[in-house]
């Protein structure tokens, strides 16, 4: 781990702001951008980068939940049900991370980025909203006002076992790689489980805080997480997210998906390049 000097803290702060802003606009946690930067550019071991990133994931989750509360986009029950799977996956990932080599973690990170990019591109025009305020959302579904289509959207949750499995994997990768896990859950919830993109993103944003907390506690206990490194990252991400939230309202979903895929492919390439032959 590089020594934590004042210039380094300022660089971490700036990186957090950029990652947080782009993360919000892309519908990611920001971790998938911050971890590679901390690891590839600043020389943090992937485990420490993941630990720092997890604290920013928690901060983003809490801030987004505080801002979104009241507009019914977050599906609290679906979130809590899926959290059982993400937290279990997270616990396992946090323990596994202690035993895995750096180059293996880098390859997993690269693979995850590619898989997610492919999923996102493959399902680019999927819109599964019912513009009917009186339709039955079922026990786990939801209803919210969608500004983009200008109507009250009702949705039902389909293929719950798939949603639970995706959440377990997302939780596992969250702890292991320091990402929020929204990159796994949101496309799957959106494409196959009937949850509209905005509702899936808001629910995932709420969930990743609890998932990341489990992982961050493990890293802290094992000495991979320092408050002095977490502080500038968290503050940077908070400011970046705040700025990004203002921009995200005006950005189109289709454009966001293309940008998301492109960023993921670049990250994957860099990770593979660094992991060696």
């Amino acid at each position, binding site marked *: 781990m590089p020594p934590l000097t004042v210039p380094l803290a300022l660089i971490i702060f700036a990186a957090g702001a950029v990652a947080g802003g782009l993360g919000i606009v892309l519908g990611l946690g920001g971790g998938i951008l911050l971890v590679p930067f901390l690891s590839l550019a600043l020389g943090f071991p992937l485990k420490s980068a993941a630990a720092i990133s997890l604290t920013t994931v928690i901060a983003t989750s809490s801030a987004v939940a505080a801002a979104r509360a*009241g507009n019914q986009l977050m599906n609290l029950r679906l979130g*809590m049900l899926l959290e059982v799977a993400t937290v279990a996956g997270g616990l396992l990932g946090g323990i596994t991370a202690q035993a895995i080599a750096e180059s293996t973690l880098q390859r997993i990170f690269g693979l995850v980025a590619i898989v997610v990019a492919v999923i996102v591109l493959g399902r680019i025009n999927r819109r599964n909203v019912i513009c009917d305020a009186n339709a039955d959302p079922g026990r786990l579904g939801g209803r919210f006002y969608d500004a983009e289509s200008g109507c009250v959207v009702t949705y039902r949750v389909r293929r719950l076992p798939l949603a639970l499995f995706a959440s377990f994997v997302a939780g596992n990768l969250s702890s292991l790689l320091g990402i929020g896990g929204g990159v796994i859950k949101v496309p799957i919830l959106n494409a196959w489980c009937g949850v509209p993109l905005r509702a899936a993103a808001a629910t995932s944003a709420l969930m990743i805080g*609890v998932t990341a907390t489990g992982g961050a506690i493990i890293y802290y206990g094992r000495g991979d997480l320092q408050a002095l490194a977490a502080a500038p990252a968290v503050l940077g991400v908070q400011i970046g997210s705040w700025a990004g939230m203002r921009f995200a309202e005006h950005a189109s979903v289709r454009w966001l998906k293309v940008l998301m895929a492109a960023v993921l492919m670049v990250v994957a390439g860099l990770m593979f390049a660094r992991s060696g032959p």
Partner: protein
Amino acid sequence: MRSSDGRDAGRLEKVIGRVMWIGTVTSSACFAAGLFLTIIGRGGTLARVLLPAGLFILLATPAARVIVSVVEYISERDWLFVALTLTVLLALAASVWAAFL
């Protein structure tokens, strides 16, 4: 029982929003103060208390959200969700156990 659009879900959402807001602001304030003291070269005892305190509050905020949810689901007598929420809390407790053992 029809959940996400019921008035109870709306109330829980507001309480959660408040908890998350307080947690976010408090932990960020601790981080900002601790980091500022460190940067101006006064990273003494106060900074060494503020920075870990910010981290602790940060980690406690999502846990607090889960605890608030348990209380709400108990008052709604939705036992399935009481059980699910307690399972999430138990898993967080298991992380603490895995971290320090």
